[in-house]
Protein backbone atom coordinates (compact mmCIF):
# COMPACT_ATOMS: atom_id res chain seq x y z
CA UNK A 1 0.00 0.00 0.00
CA UNK A 2 2.78 2.37 0.97
CA UNK A 3 4.74 1.74 -2.24
CA UNK A 4 1.60 2.28 -4.30
CA UNK A 5 0.91 5.61 -2.60
CA UNK A 6 4.49 6.78 -3.11
CA UNK A 7 4.27 6.11 -6.86
CA UNK A 8 2.22 9.28 -7.23
CA UNK A 9 4.82 11.41 -5.43
CA UNK A 10 6.86 11.80 -2.24
CA UNK A 11 4.82 11.79 0.94
CA UNK A 12 5.29 12.15 4.71
CA UNK A 13 4.05 9.81 7.43
CA UNK A 14 0.73 11.36 8.33
CA UNK A 15 -0.07 11.95 4.65
CA UNK A 16 0.40 8.23 4.00
CA UNK A 17 -1.74 7.09 6.93
CA UNK A 18 -4.45 9.62 6.04
CA UNK A 19 -4.56 8.42 2.42
CA UNK A 20 -4.81 4.77 3.51
CA UNK A 21 -7.70 5.73 5.80
CA UNK A 22 -9.51 7.72 3.12
CA UNK A 23 -8.88 5.26 0.25
CA UNK A 24 -10.30 2.43 2.36
CA UNK A 25 -13.60 4.29 2.85
CA UNK A 26 -12.46 5.08 6.39
CA UNK A 27 -12.46 1.33 7.17
CA UNK A 28 -8.76 0.80 7.71
CA UNK A 29 -6.63 2.94 9.99
CA UNK A 30 -2.99 2.00 10.16
CA UNK A 31 -1.39 2.46 13.60
CA UNK A 32 1.60 4.80 13.69
CA UNK A 33 3.86 2.10 15.14
CA UNK A 34 2.95 -0.31 12.35
CA UNK A 35 3.48 2.32 9.69
CA UNK A 36 6.90 3.43 10.96
CA UNK A 37 7.94 -0.17 11.34
CA UNK A 38 6.95 -0.76 7.70
CA UNK A 39 8.66 2.42 6.51
CA UNK A 40 11.91 1.48 8.27
CA UNK A 41 11.79 -2.02 6.78
CA UNK A 42 11.16 -0.64 3.27
CA UNK A 43 14.00 1.83 3.73
CA UNK A 44 16.33 -0.90 4.94
CA UNK A 45 15.41 -3.03 1.90
CA UNK A 46 16.19 -0.10 -0.43
CA UNK A 47 12.58 0.26 -1.62
CA UNK A 48 12.30 3.85 -0.38
CA UNK A 49 14.58 6.65 0.71
CA UNK A 50 13.78 9.44 3.15
CA UNK A 51 14.70 13.09 3.48
CA UNK A 52 13.73 15.97 5.73
CA UNK A 53 11.66 18.76 4.23
CA UNK A 54 11.76 22.41 5.16
CA UNK A 55 10.31 23.62 8.44
CA UNK A 56 6.73 24.38 7.47
CA UNK A 57 3.56 24.54 9.56
CA UNK A 58 5.53 24.72 12.76
CA UNK A 59 7.82 21.73 12.25
CA UNK A 60 9.93 19.65 9.87
CA UNK A 61 8.43 16.78 7.92
CA UNK A 62 10.23 13.64 6.89
CA UNK A 63 9.35 12.63 3.35
CA UNK A 64 9.60 9.23 1.70
CA UNK A 65 10.42 8.58 -1.93
CA UNK A 66 10.08 5.34 -3.86
CA UNK A 67 13.24 3.97 -5.51
CA UNK A 68 13.60 1.79 -8.65
CA UNK A 69 13.96 -1.22 -6.32
CA UNK A 70 10.69 -0.13 -4.69
CA UNK A 71 8.98 0.09 -8.09
CA UNK A 72 10.13 -3.46 -8.94
CA UNK A 73 9.07 -4.71 -5.50
CA UNK A 74 5.63 -3.15 -5.95
CA UNK A 75 5.19 -4.79 -9.37
CA UNK A 76 6.29 -8.15 -7.99
CA UNK A 77 4.03 -7.86 -4.91
CA UNK A 78 1.09 -6.85 -7.09
CA UNK A 79 1.62 -9.81 -9.41
CA UNK A 80 1.87 -12.15 -6.42
CA UNK A 81 -1.34 -10.73 -5.02
CA UNK A 82 -3.19 -11.10 -8.37
CA UNK A 83 -2.03 -14.72 -8.54
CA UNK A 84 -3.12 -15.43 -4.93
CA UNK A 85 -6.46 -13.72 -5.56
CA UNK A 86 -7.06 -15.84 -8.65
CA UNK A 87 -6.36 -19.04 -6.72
CA UNK A 88 -8.62 -18.01 -3.85
CA UNK A 89 -11.43 -17.09 -6.24
CA UNK A 90 -11.23 -20.55 -7.79
CA UNK A 91 -11.22 -22.21 -4.40
CA UNK A 92 -14.06 -20.26 -2.81
Amino acid at each position, binding site marked *: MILKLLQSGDK*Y*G*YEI*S*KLIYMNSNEQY*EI*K*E*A*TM*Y*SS*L*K*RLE*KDGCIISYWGDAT*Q*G*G*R*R*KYYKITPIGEDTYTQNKNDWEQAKLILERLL
Partner: protein
Amino acid sequence: MIEKLHTHVHSIFAPYISAKTAKELEEELLQNLLEKYNDHRRNGASEQSAYKLTVDSIGEVSELMESLNLQYNVLEQAINMDYSRHRLLDSDFRSVSVHDGKFNSCDLSRSDFSHSDLTNSTFKSSNLDNCIFENANLTGTLFKSANLKGVTFKNSIYNKTHFKSCNLSGLIFDGETFNQTIFEGSSLKKASFRDATLINVQFRMSDLKKIDFTGASMDKLTYNFLHGAKVDLSGVTII
Protein backbone atom coordinates in the same frame (compact mmCIF):
# COMPACT_ATOMS: atom_id res chain seq x y z
CA MET B 1 -3.19 19.17 25.33
CA ILE B 2 -0.42 19.91 22.83
CA GLU B 3 2.04 20.03 25.72
CA LYS B 4 0.60 16.78 27.07
CA LEU B 5 1.13 15.18 23.66
CA HIS B 6 4.75 16.40 23.63
CA THR B 7 5.28 14.88 27.08
CA HIS B 8 3.67 11.59 26.11
CA VAL B 9 5.76 11.15 22.98
CA HIS B 10 8.91 12.21 24.82
CA SER B 11 8.28 9.64 27.56
CA ILE B 12 8.18 6.90 24.91
CA PHE B 13 11.61 7.84 23.62
CA ALA B 14 13.21 8.94 26.91
CA PRO B 15 15.17 5.71 27.43
CA TYR B 16 16.79 6.04 24.01
CA ILE B 17 17.15 9.80 23.87
CA SER B 18 20.86 9.98 23.09
CA ALA B 19 20.50 7.72 20.07
CA LYS B 20 20.25 9.75 16.84
CA THR B 21 17.71 7.43 15.21
CA ALA B 22 15.44 7.72 18.24
CA LYS B 23 15.63 11.51 18.23
CA GLU B 24 14.71 11.63 14.57
CA LEU B 25 11.81 9.22 14.96
CA GLU B 26 10.53 11.18 17.96
CA GLU B 27 10.55 14.39 15.92
CA GLU B 28 8.86 12.71 12.97
CA LEU B 29 6.20 11.00 15.06
CA LEU B 30 5.45 14.10 17.09
CA GLN B 31 5.04 16.25 13.97
CA ASN B 32 2.61 13.75 12.45
CA LEU B 33 0.66 13.32 15.69
CA LEU B 34 0.29 17.08 16.10
CA GLU B 35 -1.15 17.27 12.61
CA LYS B 36 -3.48 14.36 13.39
CA TYR B 37 -4.59 16.04 16.65
CA ASN B 38 -5.34 19.28 14.81
CA ASP B 39 -7.36 17.37 12.19
CA HIS B 40 -9.47 15.75 14.92
CA ARG B 41 -10.05 19.17 16.48
CA ARG B 42 -11.06 20.65 13.11
CA ASN B 43 -13.51 17.76 12.70
CA GLY B 44 -15.24 18.77 15.93
CA ALA B 45 -13.60 16.50 18.51
CA SER B 46 -13.11 17.94 22.00
CA GLU B 47 -9.56 18.51 23.23
CA GLN B 48 -9.78 15.43 25.44
CA SER B 49 -11.27 13.25 22.73
CA ALA B 50 -8.79 14.45 20.08
CA TYR B 51 -5.90 13.72 22.46
CA LYS B 52 -7.18 10.20 23.18
CA LEU B 53 -7.76 9.40 19.49
CA THR B 54 -4.28 10.67 18.65
CA VAL B 55 -2.49 8.75 21.41
CA ASP B 56 -4.47 5.57 20.68
CA SER B 57 -3.41 5.74 17.05
CA ILE B 58 0.24 5.17 18.04
CA GLY B 59 -0.40 1.47 18.63
CA GLU B 60 2.19 -0.90 20.05
CA VAL B 61 5.18 1.03 21.40
CA SER B 62 7.33 -2.12 21.23
CA GLU B 63 6.76 -2.23 17.47
CA LEU B 64 7.90 1.38 17.27
CA MET B 65 11.05 0.62 19.22
CA GLU B 66 11.87 -2.38 17.04
CA SER B 67 11.80 -0.09 14.04
CA LEU B 68 14.68 1.87 15.56
CA ASN B 69 16.89 -1.15 15.01
CA LEU B 70 19.34 0.05 17.63
CA GLN B 71 22.39 -2.02 18.31
CA TYR B 72 22.57 -3.21 21.89
CA ASN B 73 25.75 -1.30 22.72
CA VAL B 74 24.28 1.91 21.29
CA LEU B 75 21.18 1.41 23.39
CA GLU B 76 23.28 0.69 26.46
CA GLN B 77 25.23 3.88 25.88
CA ALA B 78 22.01 5.79 25.32
CA ILE B 79 20.52 4.60 28.54
CA ASN B 80 23.53 5.10 30.76
CA MET B 81 22.69 8.59 31.86
CA ASP B 82 21.28 10.67 34.61
CA TYR B 83 17.50 10.86 34.57
CA SER B 84 17.26 12.74 37.83
CA ARG B 85 14.48 15.29 38.23
CA HIS B 86 12.74 14.13 35.06
CA ARG B 87 9.04 13.48 34.64
CA LEU B 88 8.95 10.07 33.03
CA LEU B 89 5.49 8.70 33.75
CA ASP B 90 4.50 5.50 31.95
CA SER B 91 8.02 5.04 30.57
CA ASP B 92 9.05 1.82 28.93
CA PHE B 93 12.39 0.70 30.37
CA ARG B 94 11.88 -2.97 29.52
CA SER B 95 14.93 -5.07 28.69
CA VAL B 96 17.40 -2.21 28.92
CA SER B 97 20.72 -2.12 30.72
CA VAL B 98 21.00 0.82 33.11
CA HIS B 99 24.17 0.23 35.07
CA ASP B 100 24.73 3.04 37.59
CA GLY B 101 21.62 4.83 36.35
CA LYS B 102 20.43 7.74 38.41
CA PHE B 103 16.68 8.06 38.79
CA ASN B 104 16.67 10.52 41.68
CA SER B 105 13.73 12.87 42.39
CA CYS B 106 12.05 11.41 39.33
CA ASP B 107 8.37 10.80 38.69
CA LEU B 108 8.33 7.32 37.16
CA SER B 109 4.73 6.39 37.95
CA ARG B 110 3.53 3.26 36.16
CA SER B 111 6.85 2.76 34.39
CA ASP B 112 7.88 -0.73 33.38
CA PHE B 113 11.39 -1.99 34.28
CA SER B 114 10.73 -5.63 33.41
CA HIS B 115 13.83 -7.62 32.37
CA SER B 116 16.01 -4.54 32.95
CA ASP B 117 19.47 -4.61 34.42
CA LEU B 118 19.44 -1.87 37.08
CA THR B 119 22.74 -2.82 38.71
CA ASN B 120 24.01 -0.11 41.08
CA SER B 121 21.25 2.29 40.06
CA THR B 122 19.75 4.74 42.55
CA PHE B 123 16.13 5.70 43.08
CA LYS B 124 16.27 8.45 45.72
CA SER B 125 13.11 10.39 46.58
CA SER B 126 11.50 9.07 43.41
CA ASN B 127 7.87 8.33 42.76
CA LEU B 128 7.66 4.69 41.65
CA ASP B 129 3.93 4.40 42.14
CA ASN B 130 2.64 1.22 40.44
CA CYS B 131 5.94 0.53 38.66
CA ILE B 132 6.74 -3.00 37.48
CA PHE B 133 10.01 -4.72 38.37
CA GLU B 134 9.58 -8.19 36.90
CA ASN B 135 12.73 -10.20 36.17
CA ALA B 136 14.77 -7.09 36.93
CA ASN B 137 18.35 -7.26 38.12
CA LEU B 138 18.43 -5.12 41.28
CA THR B 139 22.00 -5.93 42.27
CA GLY B 140 23.36 -3.07 44.37
CA THR B 141 20.28 -0.96 43.58
CA LEU B 142 19.38 1.66 46.17
CA PHE B 143 15.79 2.68 46.84
CA LYS B 144 15.87 5.58 49.30
CA SER B 145 12.82 7.52 50.50
CA ALA B 146 11.04 6.35 47.37
CA ASN B 147 7.30 5.94 46.95
CA LEU B 148 6.84 2.25 46.15
CA LYS B 149 3.07 2.08 46.52
CA GLY B 150 1.55 -0.60 44.30
CA VAL B 151 4.91 -1.70 42.90
CA THR B 152 5.11 -5.21 41.46
CA PHE B 153 8.24 -7.19 42.23
CA LYS B 154 8.50 -10.63 40.61
CA ASN B 155 11.44 -12.95 39.85
CA SER B 156 13.91 -10.14 40.41
CA ILE B 157 17.50 -10.41 41.60
CA TYR B 158 18.03 -8.84 45.04
CA ASN B 159 21.76 -9.07 45.58
CA LYS B 160 22.98 -6.36 47.98
CA THR B 161 19.83 -4.39 47.16
CA HIS B 162 19.18 -1.63 49.67
CA PHE B 163 15.73 -0.32 50.65
CA LYS B 164 16.23 2.70 52.92
CA SER B 165 13.42 4.76 54.48
CA CYS B 166 10.86 3.35 52.04
CA ASN B 167 7.25 2.44 52.59
CA LEU B 168 6.97 -1.21 51.54
CA SER B 169 3.72 -1.84 53.43
CA GLY B 170 1.61 -4.55 51.89
CA LEU B 171 4.00 -5.26 49.03
CA ILE B 172 4.31 -8.84 47.86
CA PHE B 173 7.73 -10.49 47.65
CA ASP B 174 6.40 -14.05 47.54
CA GLY B 175 8.85 -16.63 46.21
CA GLU B 176 11.65 -14.09 45.75
CA THR B 177 15.27 -14.76 46.73
CA PHE B 178 17.14 -12.13 48.74
CA ASN B 179 20.88 -12.22 49.20
CA GLN B 180 22.56 -9.65 51.49
CA THR B 181 19.58 -7.37 51.01
CA ILE B 182 19.13 -4.53 53.49
CA PHE B 183 15.76 -3.17 54.59
CA GLU B 184 16.62 -0.10 56.66
CA GLY B 185 14.22 2.24 58.41
CA SER B 186 11.43 1.03 56.15
CA SER B 187 7.87 0.04 56.81
CA LEU B 188 7.20 -3.59 55.90
CA LYS B 189 3.84 -3.73 57.63
CA LYS B 190 1.72 -6.55 56.17
CA ALA B 191 4.36 -7.19 53.49
CA SER B 192 4.37 -10.75 52.23
CA PHE B 193 7.48 -12.93 51.91
CA ARG B 194 5.65 -16.25 51.54
CA ASP B 195 7.91 -19.02 50.21
CA ALA B 196 10.75 -16.51 49.84
CA THR B 197 14.42 -17.35 50.44
CA LEU B 198 16.43 -14.93 52.57
CA ILE B 199 20.19 -15.20 53.00
CA ASN B 200 21.96 -12.70 55.26
CA VAL B 201 19.13 -10.18 55.03
CA GLN B 202 19.03 -7.26 57.44
CA PHE B 203 15.93 -5.48 58.67
CA ARG B 204 17.46 -2.53 60.52
CA MET B 205 15.01 -0.28 62.36
CA SER B 206 12.11 -1.36 60.14
CA ASP B 207 8.46 -1.77 61.02
CA LEU B 208 7.77 -5.51 60.71
CA LYS B 209 4.22 -5.67 62.05
CA LYS B 210 2.09 -8.46 60.55
CA ILE B 211 4.83 -9.35 58.06
CA ASP B 212 4.17 -12.78 56.54
CA PHE B 213 7.01 -15.31 56.23
CA THR B 214 4.84 -18.42 55.76
CA GLY B 215 6.83 -21.12 53.94
CA ALA B 216 9.95 -18.92 53.76
CA SER B 217 13.49 -20.29 54.04
CA MET B 218 16.28 -18.30 55.68
CA ASP B 219 19.72 -18.61 57.15
CA LYS B 220 20.22 -18.60 60.90
CA LEU B 221 21.50 -15.01 61.03
CA THR B 222 18.38 -13.63 59.33
CA TYR B 223 16.19 -15.91 61.44
CA ASN B 224 17.79 -14.75 64.68
CA PHE B 225 17.36 -11.11 63.76
CA LEU B 226 13.67 -11.54 62.97
CA HIS B 227 13.17 -13.71 66.04
CA GLY B 228 14.65 -10.92 68.17
CA ALA B 229 12.19 -8.51 66.60
CA LYS B 230 9.37 -10.85 67.70
CA VAL B 231 8.25 -11.66 64.17
CA ASP B 232 6.06 -14.75 63.76
CA LEU B 233 8.39 -17.33 62.19
CA SER B 234 6.26 -20.41 62.79
CA GLY B 235 6.14 -21.47 59.13
CA VAL B 236 9.81 -20.78 58.41
CA THR B 237 12.55 -23.27 57.48
CA ILE B 238 16.12 -22.56 58.59
CA ILE B 239 18.69 -23.40 55.94
